[in-house]
């Protein structure tokens, strides 16, 4: 059954989809380091900047019972993301 579905899709959809996906694969096949690391680390750093600088402070911390620097979720975001940035830098 699965083989039948696969051969049907290969016959019907491959001719339509291959001209879209194969040039993308060829292009991405030429792109590797340093862009892979820049994209990966950029995801973490971008998220930190978004929460730390762009989001409204009250929105980020709404619902906290007492105000203090230790209950500020902007700080929590930076602390919890930093180790991830370091491992992507180390294992590049």
């Amino acid at each position: 059954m699965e083989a039948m579905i696969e051969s049907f899709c290969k016959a019907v959809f491959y001719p339509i989809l291959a001209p879209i996906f194969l040039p993308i694969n060829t292009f991405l096949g030429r792109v590797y380091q340093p862009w892979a690391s820049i994209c990966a680390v950029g995801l973490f750093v971008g998220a930190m900047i978004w929460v730390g600088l762009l989001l409204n402070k009250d929105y980020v911390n709404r619902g906290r019972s007492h105000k203090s620097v230790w209950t500020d979720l902007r700080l929590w975001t930076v602390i919890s993301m930093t180790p991830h940035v370091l491992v992507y830098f180390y294992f590049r």
Partner: protein
Amino acid sequence: MESVIGLHFIDVIIIVVYMIGSLALGLYCTRFVGSAEDFFIAGKALPFWAVGFSIVTSDIGATDFVAVAGAAYTNGVSAANFDWMGSMPAMVIAAFVFVPYFWRSGVFTIPEFLGRRYNTGVQFVNGLIWAVVLFFMLAIMQWLSADKLMHTILGWNTYWTLAITAIITGIYTFSGGLTAVVFTDVVQLIVMYVGGFGLLALSVWKVGGWTSLHDKILAMGPAYQNHFKLLLPHDTTGPFPWTGIVFGLGLVMAVAYMSGNQVIVQRTLGARSEWDAKAGMLFGGLLKFSIPLMVALPGLCAIVLVPQLGAENADRAVPAMIRLLMPAGLRGLMFAALFAAMMSHISASLNSTATIFVTDIIGQIRKWAGKGQMSEKTAVRMGRLLTAALIISTALLAQPIGDRPSIYVYMQTILSMFQGPLLAILLLGIMWPRATGYGGFAGLTLGLVCAFVLYQTPGLFFAQDPFLFVAWWSFVFAMIVTVVVSLLTKPESEEKLRGMVWSSVVRDVDAQDALRERIAQ
């Protein structure tokens, strides 16, 4: 079959005490269940640390210990991407975009939220997808744990193990609902950490330290040169090329998993405040950072310590390391850690599947039949009955569903088939007021068709198992369909959208009042 680990009497005592303790803690939580809210979302009383612990424990199964270590043995540290790239960015997005909406709208399930934002058709289709997927996952997890893990490692009879696991997890989930699940999760994660880090410390010590491990693996030949790289080239034939990791995993599968997976989101819905819900997500992300250290690094150490295993027996890396390194007593603790992971994974899925069946499937059918909403008592009774029915039926069907040669790829493929379309309609529903019910329904259903076609058409991607690319492209396709169909259909009324889209929730005080009124109704 001979026991691979070789347990001593003291190990057996530790395991039995642990199993009885889990059952007792779960049954103790029964006293906190008085309403549907108590059973399904722990009465909205969970502190951030319990939410964080429970998110991590629900996400890490016993099979992760074995399969991720095996993947690290074969592919190197790139196996850790699922807990690093596949967690933290998605958890931040979930914490600050999705969780506040789910939490404020007072819903029990994600399909229920989609029903309020779009229409009951979207809610029903989404609920049905999740219920079927979680049912399959439950059966697969039980089979994996009983057959691939307990039978392989200990030589225990598969069917007896299946029955014992089903009875223990079934009883405490049946009785105590989410409260029992979360508090046993906290204990289970602590046991997992002690066992996991114990194995890591002994492994690294035996190899001679990190530098020695690094040098020895790289000296083993060209096949090992990428073992210390997290990001592999796009044209690699393995399952983890960097493009798939960043786009398919980091931007789609992980976000959909953390934001749209009932098992994960149910824990944040049970938080005692919005701050605890968000903080629980971030705390969970920080805890998850250490998971690859205790599951993937022992797999790397196994390359040096048990090189005779070979790629075909990579999944035996953890059992082999336990046998080689751990003394009596610690072996029992490590086994308890594996058992803890297995039980928490099953109980989490069990509670969430019952919640979706009661809220989105039976509840919706009752509404369409004109029977009105269920009473609190009926909902709890039905939740418990379904919990019992689910654990029995999935245990009975565990072998036919779960007995497959490549179960990890099978599970990831199931998830990738619908996570792209689900994320697309969730994201547009929250961010774009113009998204309509028809748009959401078309995006979800046609997105599923697109994922199916991409997966079934070979030769489109370099990777032999292209589930990461299927997730990404079905997400893009579902976004386009939802936008086009929404623009062609009548916009939703302002009244319906109040408190449901991001801009109004962040800036509009009236919208907050409308939301509170809606919850109170």
